[in-house]
């Protein structure tokens, strides 16, 4: 123990009289040395504080340590690591950890799980919204091939990003124990690579999609009424809607706001090569995760309404055409504008053979 603490001066005995004096003499010297070492040590322990006081480096004050702890550093902070610009203490790291693990992660799960539960309940109690009138069999052109491709590309990318993102946040609680390390290693690295490379593509295509849909999604006065009547769910009353109804416009503007925030924060996270620091990354991650989890929850509603929830909606996005009855019941104002363009199956077939490729060449009626 004393080896570490002692700074006792050690006097090395000089033996000028040769080796003839014998080993016993050496032993005596050694003994004396050992004893004196022992005594000096004792003396050091008692008398040295003064000496220590004189030679001690003036310490950093408690205040300065507090400053270091809080993450601040002054201009005279130096780090021997070759490219480091880090503070000694990353004080916001714990804040980020708590925000992410205690708030974002559980509440994200509640939001998404809650959404699924509410929709499932709604489906089993209220059921599918069927068309009130029988179909007329006459079709209205709604989505061009270009818009359909764009929609499905963005949707596929969105779902991929949502699933891979969810895996980054929650996967370790499920799949590691379920599948073992080898599969899990593959799953999670694939998730990260997919997420980080598809993210920017999604970002660009989302902007293109938002621009092409803008003119159909300008809020109108009847959209407000649509909301007050719960999109026709509340009461038997009839609700007005143009090409896009109030709900679709809300989804549009959610993507145009939160969606773009998720994209922007995603870009910050995705390109560490620009040298953004830990603090920036922490905030980008929190914003990205909250936005993304919120969008994921709402997107489940969008997917439900577009597929199971409403009879006839999916046809528009798959074939490009919707039934007249569907248009009349869900988008009456739009129907009024385009009803004279309705076509029967035979007319459509005739037109298709006439112009040999239907969807692509047709333009959406405004």
């Amino acid at each position, binding site marked *: 123990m004393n080896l570490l603490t002692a700074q006792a001066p050690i006097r090395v005995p000089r033996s000028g009289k040769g080796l003839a004096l014998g080993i016993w003499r050496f032993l005596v010297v050694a003994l004396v040395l050992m004893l004196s070492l022992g005594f000096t040590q004792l003396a050091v322990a008692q008398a040295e504080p003064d000496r220590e006081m004189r030679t001690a*480096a003036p310490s950093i004050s408690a205040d300065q340590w507090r400053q270091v702890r809080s993450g601040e550093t002054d201009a005279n902070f130096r780090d021997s690591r070759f490219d480091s610009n880090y503070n000694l203490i990353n004080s916001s790291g714990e804040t980020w950890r708590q925000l992410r693990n205690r708030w974002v992660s559980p509440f994200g799960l509640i939001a998404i799980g809650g959404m699924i539960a509410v929709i499932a309940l709604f489906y089993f109690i209220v059921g599918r919204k069927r068309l009130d009138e029988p179909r007329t069999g006459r079709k209205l052109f709604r989505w061009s091939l270009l818009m359909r491709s764009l929609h499905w590309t963005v949707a596929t990318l969105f779902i991929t990003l949502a699933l891979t993102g969810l895996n980054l946040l929650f996967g370790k609680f499920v799949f590691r124990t379920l599948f073992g390390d080898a599969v899990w290693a593959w799953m999670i690295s694939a998730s990260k690579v997919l997420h980080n490379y598809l993210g920017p593509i999604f970002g660009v295509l989302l902007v293109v999609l938002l621009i092409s849909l803008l003119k159909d999604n300008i809020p109108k006065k009847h959209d407000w009424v649509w909301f007050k009547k719960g999109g026709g769910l509340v009461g038997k009353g009839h609700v007005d809607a143009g090409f896009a109804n109030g709900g679709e416009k809300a989804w549009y503007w959610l993507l145009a706001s939160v969606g773009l925030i998720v994209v922007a924060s995603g870009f910050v996270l995705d390109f560490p090569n620009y040298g953004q620091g830990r603090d920036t990354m922490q905030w980008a991650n929190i914003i990205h995760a909250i936005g993304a989890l919120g969008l994921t929850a709402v997107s489940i509603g969008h997917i439900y309404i577009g597929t199971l929830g409403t009879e006839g909606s999916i046809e528009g996005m798959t074939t490009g055409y919707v039934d007249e009855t569907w248009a009349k019941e869900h988008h009456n104002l739009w129907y009024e504008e385009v009803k004279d363009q309705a076509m029967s199956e035979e007319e459509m077939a005739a037109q298709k053979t006439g112009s040999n490729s239907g969807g692509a060449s047709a333009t959406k009626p405004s």
Partner: protein
Amino acid sequence: MAQMKFMCDAERCIECNGCVTACKNANDVEWGIQRRRVVTLNDGEADEMSISVACMHCDDAPCMAVCPTDCFYKTDDGIVLHDKDLCIGCGYCLYACPFGAPQFPQQNAFGERGKMDKCTFCAGGPAESKEEEYQKYGSNRIAEGKLPLCAEMCSTKALLAGDAQDVADIFRQRVVHRGHKDGAWSNNPQASADNLAYDAARKG
């Protein structure tokens, strides 16, 4: 079962960077990565003070808590290690770590950082063979009954490594020995030397 800890006695550290060099040498650390660093506060001023920092092998380790792959684990000696086969280089451990310990060989577009690297307390990491372990994580001195080379090489014994109990004992003796109010980490006016000594030795 030991609880391995590092402690740097800032009163003793002379900023020689011997620990940094020892670490690079012992572990053959990748180019551009420096598992240990020496930070100098108030550089060039009369109250300049240096402290050597690396992974502190936290009890409630933030890196472990945020890692999306769950690749960290704690050894029976309280050493925090990670599995490079699982690491995806997302950088989350770096965002959470209080000491800037995790580092990455690259920092490229699309979050391509390579596998995270950090101090292992010279305890290697998970691998099939000794060679693979050395190549991925550096030496495993703990398995050979030795302490981390940085602390072993520290010329002033400012940097201590070992069981928390032993490290605390040594530090307490130093503080008692110094016997002045600047003896420990700060000249906290409220604390007498005795209190500081007590603090340094307090367990748990």
